[in-house]
């Protein structure tokens, strides 16, 4: 956990120090590209874990149906409350 916090702090410091650099535009493109690649790598790893669960046979039909239901319900409920919270906080009129 501490290394994540340190990485965040270091990133913020480097970002603040380099924002006025004349290579700023290239930096923004580099950040965007790295974020995309990193996201794809992490999704691939999570997919790998799901694949190994599927193979292990723990993924029966009931388990997958129940997982989908829990997931869909929590997403819908969170989004609905998020809309209300944003309205309450004045972020959306």
């Amino acid at each position, binding site marked *: 956990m501490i290394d994540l916090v340190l*990485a965040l702090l270091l990133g913020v410091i480097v970002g603040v120090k380099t924002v006025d650099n004349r290579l700023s535009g290239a930096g923004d493109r580099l*950040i965007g590209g790295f974020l995309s690649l990193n996201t794809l790598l992490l*999704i*691939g790893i999570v997919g790998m874990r799901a*694949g190994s669960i599927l193979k292990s046979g723990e993924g029966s039909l009931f388990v997958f149906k129940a997982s989908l239901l829990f*997931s869909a319900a*929590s997403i819908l409920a969170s989004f609905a409350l998020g809309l209300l919270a944003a309205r309450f906080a004045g972020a959306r009129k």
Partner: protein
Amino acid sequence: MRMPFTVYVLASLSLGLVMGYAGFSLPGYVMHYALVSLIFVAGLAIGREFKELVRQAGRLTYLGVMFAAANIVAGCISGLLISRVLGGSLRVGSVIGAGSGWYTLVGPLVSQVDPVYGVIGFLANMLREEIHILIYPLLSRCCPLEAITIGGATTMDTGLPVVALYGERKHMLVALIQGGIITLIAPIILPLMLGD
């Protein structure tokens, strides 16, 4: 220009699924270092918008706290509802819902009480993370701020890049605060809810 990334996400997920099913696996430190570098780059992006973010910090923090609370409450209610439908334990159901996408916490925690629901908790929360990554690019066109809530705890790490890519920089701060608060309180309240 925006849609192709969702296609890449699906392709990456599919490739991972196939590789995992075929028996491939990566050491745990690969994911850890990918996360560390991701957080560093997210910090870099925040740092570049620092002056603007400081100007809006109070309001964004308030929104992040509201979203975190909305996530936990909505997760509990939806979990209770689904466990009622499935005829399972209400306590376990509310924990699965309130996990807010933190599958590495919910899976092992619930497995101590019920191994089958442990797998359900793991998969449900993992799906939530994947669905957030898949649908945030679409929802960001109408409501980039509110759509952050879908990611739950994952918006602090794995769910953050899509917010950075498709939302505004100030949305990243809301996402980080929401994910950070859930990450801080979930390990405390979930075992309490489970009666551990």
